[in-house]
């Protein structure tokens, strides 16, 4: 008897990622991080778990990895802080939860899941989202816990107007000269 099909895919951002820009050891580290993240969700599915639990497991693993622009390793705002957005949706009943501009929840995707399961709403934003997630006893961290040296350097480069090639998620040229061209080597969207 054939097993019911399962399927899974993940992403960690897209952009003008140029072969050779990253040192080989960094590429290896990113491949390993992707493997670790998809394994987390795949194990859930292989054990008969739900797709909702599987996608949450994958995204938590990616949020915990400083290589990606989510959770630990999130980019800086102009003010030097971090604002996190996340959403999760269940295809079985189209229930959904999302947060925008959250500051303190360690794993934003878990915050989105809490909105899905424990609120009457689909999206909570800013200080209200922070307050709701605190009331829901979600693990909190100081906002600077999300800092990494790579992101701080990119933030500083952007503030000083120097646009050195990097793997940063950055402004694209939507606002004309505000942010520099999006086709430069290494440009990556958040």
């Amino acid at each position, binding site marked *: 008897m054939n*097993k019911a*099909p*399962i*399927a*899974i*895919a*993940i*992403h*960690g*951002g*897209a*952009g003008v*990622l*140029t072969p050779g820009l990253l040192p080989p050891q960094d*590429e290896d580290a990113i491949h390993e991080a992707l*493997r670790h*993240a*998809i394994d987390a969700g795949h194990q859930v*599915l292989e054990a*008969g*778990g739900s*797709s*909702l639990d*599987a*996608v949450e497991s*994958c*995204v938590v693993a*990616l949020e915990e990895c400083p290589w*990606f*622009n*989510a*959770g630990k390793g999130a*980019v800086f705002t102009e*003010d030097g802080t*971090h*604002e*996190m*957005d*996340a*959403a*999760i*949706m*269940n*295809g*079985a009943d189209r229930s*959904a939860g*999302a*947060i*925008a*501009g959250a500051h303190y929840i360690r794993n934003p*995707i878990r915050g*989105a899941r809490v909105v899905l399961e424990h609120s009457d709403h*689909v999206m909570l934003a800013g200080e209200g989202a922070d307050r709701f997630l605190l009331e829901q006893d979600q693990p909190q961290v100081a906002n600077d816990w999300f800092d990494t040296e790579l*992101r701080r350097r990119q933030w500083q480069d*952007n503030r000083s107007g120097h646009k050195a090639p990097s793997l940063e*998620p950055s*402004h*694209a040229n939507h606002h004309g000269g505000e942010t520099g061209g999006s086709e430069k080597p290494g440009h990556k*969207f*958040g």
Partner: protein
Amino acid sequence: TVGAVALDSHGHVASATSTGGITNKRFSRVGDTPLIGAGTWADDRSAAISATGHGEYFIRAVVGHDIAARMRFAGRDLATACDEVVHQELKALGGQGGVIAVSPDGDTRLSFNTPGMYRAWRDDEGQLHTAIY
């Protein structure tokens, strides 16, 4: 931005997306990630989709829901629907980035109009793959 889509053994799909946004963002800018239908969408009648890219364009193209609607109402398969939206609708607006998607029948599609996307997927034989470019 990071994201995941999955189909479980009960036939249900789900999608999740998370991001720190764009570097040096101001004015409490919010992109497509938390907007249901734009950066994140899941519906057992069509597909689960998670997007990454220039959020303002993904919002205007309502990327996730557009892919699902093409499947549900126009009979497109997953690959065709994803490619039409990413390489035609989105590209016509000037939007760059990509999507990952799975359908309830087990199809998987990774579609992007940029030179690279960090990604991983499980193929038809159960093997897990990772790629950058």
